[in-house]
């Protein structure tokens, strides 16, 4: 007996048919994976189920009864919970406040915080999802925040848990942990809809797989009946190269050189404790590390968003230690930020405007302070075509693009600028396999044209397939350097989690310069 059934759900936005007569079933204790290209309509479908959007046509059945889900409140009452692609947490509030929001225990409008905290503890113990109930969201890592989102859905009494790209922002360890949690939830009798672009995850966790393309379901399969290559073909409609080919790096002159920088985080604690390295033209250097080990601060200081307290940063021999974001762009640094919505886009601007951000002072976008709308639109259309951004027009607001297409806008702008140095943080976050292949090819093309690339990512596969050289960062120090040929996921993981220990870090600190000069310089 299906717990949830969708029949012929149709939803159109101006210029796009986001869901075209989509039907699906979800049984009790089942995990269905929803797979599909960026913009295929996965989030839209789930937002319809959660009552955030209303379908133009079609039926929803819960427990075999027809329902019209008009609001999230209604969905919650029916036992549907959702962890959104972009988190729905109120940052200055505490974990407990976020979890109980909308269903606070208490009487006469007064919240009984003791009970609230107690219930949060109970659920978090029961599913072993450890969190500090009194921590503020803003102080939590992304993985922790996601845990809070899951707890929120469980607190609301979810029987069906919708997870929209839950792993896009997680480190490999956190993904393993999430899988454990989802399995234990299913053992308890819950059902889950799992949206992801990572094919190996689909194979690992799903009972059934539904593939969408252009708003419609194009196929259904099970993990035992297919493999990653087969899934990719179903999804994109052609064969996809899952790992890109690349030649040997031709190391040229040093492009970026970072010398003994110390950087403080927002709480004025030292996050980067004396890091030195250099990247030469034609090289992709990856910084691998678990989130929160100083890579964010390091990236921000290279792109002009944060000032180091000590040390220098040079781009092609020019000191850019104190450059601001504008000077940094003008010096030839491009930056794909890890959080596209907060740092990469102005969501209220349209695609064309977002595509020229940062280059909006210069031709072809503008001359002498006057913008040229025609040239801007033309450039935007070219980028939309080149980067396969799925949208009806360049005048669509960034806010209404699908998550992956928002990411493509950022990538198109930053690579399209043709920089000397490309700093890419999680550049393929939320992209489908086809788009990842494309972005990887672009990054390698940048390298092959003699540009330097700094890649910061938790995706070990991405590190291993793109990088020429890998630095492992741990607690604000570079603890290990690898040529890509000598590295594998296991050793990287070992050093990333502090396996090398502080001993290595100290050794590193005593001789920071020699051990981290670019390979081509030696």
């Amino acid at each position, binding site marked *: 007996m299906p717990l949830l059934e969708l029949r012929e759900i149709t939803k159109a936005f101006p210029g796009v048919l986001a869901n075209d007569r989509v039907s699906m079933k979800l049984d009790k204790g089942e995990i269905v994976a929803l797979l599909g290209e960026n913009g295929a309509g996965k989030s839209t479908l789930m937002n319809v189920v959660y009552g955030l959007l209303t379908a133009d046509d079609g039926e929803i059945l819960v427990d075999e009864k027809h329902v019209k889900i008009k609001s999230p409140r209604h969905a919650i009452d029916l036992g549907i919970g959702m962890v959104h692609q972009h988190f729905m947490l109120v940052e200055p*509030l505490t974990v407990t406040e976020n979890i109980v929001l909308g269903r606070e225990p208490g009487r006469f409008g007064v919240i009984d915080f003791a009970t609230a905290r107690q219930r949060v503890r109970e659920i978090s113990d029961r599913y072993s999802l450890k969190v500090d109930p009194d921590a503020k969201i803003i102080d939590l890592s992304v993985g922790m925040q996601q845990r809070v989102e899951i707890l929120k859905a469980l607190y609301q009494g979810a029987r069906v848990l919708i997870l929209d790209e839950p792993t896009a922002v997680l480190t490999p360890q956190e993904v393993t942990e999430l899988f454990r949690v989802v399995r234990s939830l299913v053992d308890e009798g819950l059902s889950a809809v799992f949206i992801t672009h990572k094919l190996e995850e689909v194979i690992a966790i799903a009972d059934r797989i539904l593939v969408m393309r252009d708003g419609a379901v194009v196929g259904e399969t099970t993990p035992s009946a297919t493999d990653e290559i087969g899934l990719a073909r179903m999804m994109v409609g052609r064969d996809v190269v899952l790992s890109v080919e690349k030649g040997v790096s031709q190391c040229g002159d040093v492009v970026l050189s970072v010398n003994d920088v110390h950087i403080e985080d927002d709480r004025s604690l030292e996050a980067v404790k004396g890091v030195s390295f250099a990247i030469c033209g034609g090289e992709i250097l990856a910084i691998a590390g678990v989130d929160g080990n100083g890579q964010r601060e390091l990236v921000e200081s290279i792109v002009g968003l944060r000032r180091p307290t000590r040390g220098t940063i040079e781009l092609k021999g020019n000191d850019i230690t104190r450059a601001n974001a504008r000077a940094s762009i003008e010096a030839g640094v491009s930056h794909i930020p890890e959080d596209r919505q907060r740092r990469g886009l102005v969501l209220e601007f349209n695609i064309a405007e977002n595509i020229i951000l940062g280059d909006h002072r210069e031709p072809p976008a503008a001359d002498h302070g006057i913008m040229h709308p025609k040239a801007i639109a033309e450039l935007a259309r070219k980028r939309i075509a080149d980067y396969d951004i799925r949208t009806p027009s360049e005048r669509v607001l960034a806010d209404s693009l699908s998550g992956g297409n928002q990411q493509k806008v950022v990538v198109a702008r930053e690579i399209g600028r043709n920089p000397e140095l490309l700093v890419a943080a999680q550049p393929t976050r939320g992209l489908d396999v086809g788009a990842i292949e494309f972005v990887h090819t672009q990054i390698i093309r940048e390298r092959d044209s003699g540009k330097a690339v700094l890649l910061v990512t938790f995706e070990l596969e991405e590190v291993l397939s793109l990088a020429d050289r890998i630095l492992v960062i741990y607690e604000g120090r570079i603890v290990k350097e690898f040529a890509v040929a000598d590295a594998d996921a296991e050793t990287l993981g070992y050093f990333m989690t502090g396996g090398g220990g502080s001993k290595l870090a100290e050794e590193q600190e005593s001789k920071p310069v020699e051990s981290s000069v670019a390979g081509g310089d030696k």
Partner: protein
Amino acid sequence: MLGDIITPDLFASAFRMATPLALAAIGGTICERSGVVNIALEGIMLVGAFAGVAVTLAFGSPWLGVVAAVLAGVAIAAIHAFTSINLRSDQVVSGTAINILALGLTGFLMEIMYGHPGTTEAIITIKPVFRFATERGSGTFFGVIWNWFNTIVLSHTPIVYGAIIIAVVAQWAMYNTRWGLHLRALGEHPRAVDTVGVSVVRGRWIAVLMSGALAGLAGANLTLEQVGSFTENMTNGRGFIALAANIFGRWTPVGSYSASLLFGFFDALQIKLQIFRGEINIPPQFFLMMPYVLTVVVLAGVVGRAVGPAAVGKPYKKG
């Protein structure tokens, strides 16, 4: 001379001056916490002040006047709520329009109701709550203490005490009730509030109407407890100073009250010093300027680092 300036009266006056600012500032706090900028506090206060006087003149009861002021404030705030929440228009534009409207409307109503611009007739004001003898056993140590206490704490009219109670209750409610939690979440991440099934539109409407009631009450305090008549544009920028007090108070009711008290103190001091301007020999405009200079200094310097609710001023659209 210092002894003539630092008197119990100065501090009592600070509380009085602070009251309209504080009420409007708490209104601003509630409104901005919900995600709506309320630049219309000034105009709402003015309409409240007028409605209070008009009803008191008509029915002879200043208490009825207070009720009228609050209702008038709510009515004007409803315009702001409708334009900024339902129509999703720019909240600063809507607020500015209301301020201009309030100025014109009160002037116009004065003409048709009383046949002249300027100032209305005097009304019976609301009396202080307690009335104890001031100079009981003056000269003795306890007499002096009593005298200070009586003047500073026990000499006030009801709304002055009301403002303190409102500040404390609102502060408590903001951190201990459902309403407060929803309010704090609304201005930060309205979509998150929506996804847990709490109505953003409703929450914002309530907040804007509450700010209207408080600004209306501020107007009532001004005319029915302090001045005793209505004069065109008598709020004289208090609504804007209240907004500054809200920011200085970091978007909390008690903070807003405290900041208003500081502004009120400077206002009281300014008046006090004017009496001595013959001796100090500084032009009177200098003193009049002080509360405003303080506002600018506070906003530019001290509050430079204050961060308001993340989604304030942004209309919310479902889906």
